[in-house]
């Protein structure tokens, strides 16, 4: 062992030395330094998550159990704002032309308290809430999507970053732009304000959990499926789908918060989709005190505080829980109202599966001597029901997000989305033990959403047809280096895709003479229910308007729209998905 090194060396074996002045503190004769070793630099790992309090609904519900929840968002070092890598909260108010003081969540005094406490009058909490809910929404979306969020465009892709303005201006609105800006307005409640909101009070849309999730989702959709915007002018369903998907995200993510569910489970006897909650106090005659008043189920209203401030009882969307009416689809054109039909269908499926699952718990409970007519559920049963509802909500949300990769390019219809859901769920869970696909099919059918191009209303018929590879040229994709391809790999794949599309245009039901926008190949990594990793490659091809027309009487819109191509991990084309559901030449229904 060398003694010439200045580096402290530790040894547990006594080593003889010739030194007379050996006065080692520990082991005589060793080369252990005389002074105690300097402490190693601190290598404390950053925490995996940051815990932050937010409203699960909005301030109008006050201290209702479950309204204030703690969310765990991925930890990152934050500058005042908060400003992180992918989210920058910048509190600029264009009405007053001023900035508001940014919260510093990394300030030890703030961090020690676990962030800011909920407060309507402190913009620091508003900034925290926007950051936390946006961050949570991004995380959940990414987890479901199976790949990091990137902003895609026909010419390439770029990093994804959102700018959030919690008090952008005095206006009764909140919105997202296609460049990743989330703007939240604030306003004074109208004279007709209902519920807990008083006329004239200041209402902040950035304190509505729903508004934040909806705008964030809107920004994400713009980034990951910009081709949908091509369809806004082609079919009203595309715009309505945008609205519905944002609504659905807000509702399903809310149901994934266990704390928010527990009180509702208690006050509905486990029937969480009941529209009215049982009052705290029983009364034989008319209610006289607030405890005797039955309240609306807040889980079922979208942005309820926002709606109440405008004098609309029950939140922004009105018809989510109406009885299904198959004729409505033919008459409702307004995008948000039409979107409610789709939202209601997915929620119907979710609640139906929950009802079926909860029934099993009730049976077990009753068989053990438990009684359901007493009104109160035991804590253990409530907990299991909350777990079940949460798990199913996450599962349904994941399915809806995954289905985005199975939607046609350049616009879609509601029945396209149903088929995308069926296919995405089949790809992950071929056995469908929970009965998700059947529940979706029946819920859509009840609302008049029936795929026109499918021969039957069965799961097999609704699933997108598999491509028969024998009729297609090989894609020739470069798979080495995936899922994180370098620039060269990206370019090679883009070229290979273009060549593949040109060579197979006819088989893909595309006009060979049309110019195409080809979106970058996205590498998706998902796991099967038995935790086996699975890689899927997805891209969209959208035809651009033809430079010259074919003309002729009765010519149709064959050149419009596009196709979504889904390749398996080996680079073999598995699905070629076009709106309208007509199977492309060379496809075979499995």
């Amino acid at each position, binding site marked *: 062992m060398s003694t010439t090194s200045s580096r402290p060396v530790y040894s547990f074996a006594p080593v003889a030395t010739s030194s007379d002045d050996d006065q080692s503190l520990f082991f005589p004769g060793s080369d252990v330094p005389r002074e105690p070793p300097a402490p190693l630099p601190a290598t404390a790992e950053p925490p995996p998550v940051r815990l932050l309090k937010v409203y699960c609904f909005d301030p109008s519900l006050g201290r209702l159990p479950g309204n204030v929840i703690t969310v765990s968002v991925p930890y990152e070092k934050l500058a005042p*704002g908060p400003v992180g890598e992918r989210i920058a909260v910048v509190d600029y108010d264009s009405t007053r032309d001023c900035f508001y*003081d940014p919260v510093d969540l990394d300030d030890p005094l703030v961090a020690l308290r676990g962030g800011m406490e909920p407060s309507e009058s402190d913009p620091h909490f508003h900034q925290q809430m926007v950051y936390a809910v946006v961050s949570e929404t991004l995380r959940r979306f990414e987890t479901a999507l199976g790949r990091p969020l990137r902003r895609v465009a026909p010419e390439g892709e770029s990093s994804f970053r959102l700018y959030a303005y919690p*008090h952008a*201006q005095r206006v009764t609105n909140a919105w997202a732009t296609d460049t990743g800006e989330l703007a939240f307005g604030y306003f004074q409640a109208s004279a007709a304000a209902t519920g807990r909101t008083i006329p004239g009070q200041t209402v*902040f849309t950035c304190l509505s959990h729903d*508004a934040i999730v*909806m705008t964030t989702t809107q920004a994400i959709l713009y980034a990951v499926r910009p081709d949908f915007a091509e369809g806004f002018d082609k079919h009203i369903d595309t*715009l309505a789908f945008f609205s519905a998907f944002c609504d659905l995200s807000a509702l399903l993510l809310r149901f994934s918060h266990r704390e928010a569910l527990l009180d509702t489970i208690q006050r509905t006897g486990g029937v969480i989709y009941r529209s009215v909650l049982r009052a705290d106090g029983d009364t034989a005659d008319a209610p006289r005190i607030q405890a005797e008043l039955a309240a609306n189920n807040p889980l079922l209203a979208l942005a309820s505080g926002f709606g109440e401030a405008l004098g609309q009882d029950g939140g922004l969307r009105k018809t989510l829980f109406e009885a299904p009416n198959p004729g409505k689809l033919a008459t409702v054109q307004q995008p948000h109202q039409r979107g409610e039909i789709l939202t209601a269908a997915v929620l119907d499926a979710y609640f139906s599966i929950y009802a079926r699952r909860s029934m099993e718990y009730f049976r077990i409970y009753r068989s053990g001597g438990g009684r359901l007519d007493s009104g109160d559920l035991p804590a253990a049963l409530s907990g299991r029901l909350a777990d079940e509802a949460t798990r199913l909500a996450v599962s349904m949300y994941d399915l809806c997000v995954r289905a985005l990769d199975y939607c046609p390019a350049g616009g879609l219809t509601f029945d396209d989305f149903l088929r995308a859901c069926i296919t995405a769920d089949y790809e992950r869970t071929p056995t469908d033990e929970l009965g998700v696909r059947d529940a979706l099919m029946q819920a859509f059918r009840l609302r008049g959403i029936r795929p026109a191009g499918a021969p039957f209303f069965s799961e097999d018929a609704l699933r997108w047809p598999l491509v028969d590879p024998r009729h297609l040229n090989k894609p020739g994709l470069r798979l080495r280096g995936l899922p994180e391809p370098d620039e060269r790999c990206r370019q090679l794949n883009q070229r290979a895709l273009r060549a593949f599309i040109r060579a197979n245009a006819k088989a893909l039901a595309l006009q060979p003479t049309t110019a195409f926008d080809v979106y970058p190949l996205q590498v998706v990594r998902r796991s099967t229910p038995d935790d086996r990793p699975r890689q899927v490659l997805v891209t969209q091809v959208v035809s651009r308007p033809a430079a010259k027309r074919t*003309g*002729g009487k009765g010519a149709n819109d064959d050149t419009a729209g596009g196709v979504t191509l889904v390749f398996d991990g080996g680079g073999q084309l598995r699905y070629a998905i076009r709106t309208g559901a007509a199977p492309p030449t060379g496809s075979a229904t499995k």
Partner: protein
Amino acid sequence: MAKKASAAGPLRVRMYRVGFGDFFLFTLPSKAGPQHVLIDCGVTKGKTGKGDIGTIKAAVADMAKETGRKLALIIVTHRHMDHIIGFSRCKEEFEQFEVGAIWMPVWETEYEENVQKLQAELTALAFDAGMHLALAADDTPGRAELLAMLENATGHDFLAGGAFGIAGTGGGTNAASLLLLKEGMGVKPTYYHKGQTAKLPKALVDAGLEAEILGPPPVDELAFMKLKDLKKGVGQYLEASERRPGSDGRFLPFAERFIASPDDYPASAFREWVPRGAGARPAPEALQKAVKKLQKAVDDAQPEVLFTAVKALDGFLNNQSLVVLFTFRGKKLLFAGDAQAGNWEYWLYDSDTPVKAPTGELGAEGAQVLGHLDFYKVGHHGSTNATPIAAVEAMNKDFVSMCSTQEGAFGSVENQSEVPRIPLMEALGGKSVVVRSDQIPVKLKGGSVDPVPGSPEEPETPKRGRFELGNCYVDYFL
């Protein structure tokens, strides 16, 4: 019932009453029998939802019967719903027509990529604005008017139901109408701008018709295209009134102690707007510019900015209007579409640049056209921004004006934005006999629609020619 135009008879202009929208049938006699020119076919509900009176399908059926499903020419002035929705709403009917030619403004061409791109961007702007209103409340300033403009720009029903309590539309979209007109009528459209020679179909040439294209300006004259309004009180029948909601400064969301400056934020908060560097902290000047850009990004989303953008879109589309002057046996008929200020100015004045308050003399062409009119299709349904004061003043007397409109669909008297604008109607009335479509009674098998209150019993007798009322139209024989 109206008489059919015969080979030796007078020419006829038929204005259908469909609500707020243009639907004109121009028929002229010829040796080969009557030749028909259809000019637009559309309707929109407007801001209040009262614009569509639900008669367009019956009117199209009447037109089909009248023409024997044979049109020598279809003129599509521009792509607004109130001018084209009828084509897709009655697609099955139109697909049975034999059409000699279709004229559209140059802005519909498929042969110029830049034009296509701009039109696509305008459509995208309309839908983006619609998405901006995703969470908008009913009391958002100008929301109803914005939605009405968006609906007109796309043909999609942004207004149906909800706060407005209105049922869905009768179907069709602008995109579907354009597709039908460009691809589904068996004839290739011709696209025109001012300065080009109109090529009439042979049947109309043989009948003795001549046509001159007065608008829109060529596509590179963007400055004219963007001029949608003239100076209030000078160029158009409107007095100045400005408002800026929400900026009174008295409503403060937070205590003053929370006011901060951009310096309180890290440089990374403005990264998007700082030119990409090597990762070093940007220079103070660059950061300052970045802050300004961020402020502009938020400012640009202000409701009134959105309102302005959508209004600009609306005006731009109106300025794309194909303006045609027909001459038949010495009689002059001017169809102005929805042309707004810039479109008018381009052919009215000898000027290379548009001005908001033109004060000079009209150009020779403008004076010649307006000084010898026999018929004028009132621009933009009688809106204040579509027939400049100078144009009305230059018009001769004793002609006939037809205005396809529906009172109460847009604007209000209080805001001096009612359509049709009363001072404009009065000014035109001083020069011509004005017939409004909303003053015509509709009597169809399926129901009837009364004239708007205050309508005359019957149109005033013109100096030349005569009017005849039909079950859903008025004819002017000249």
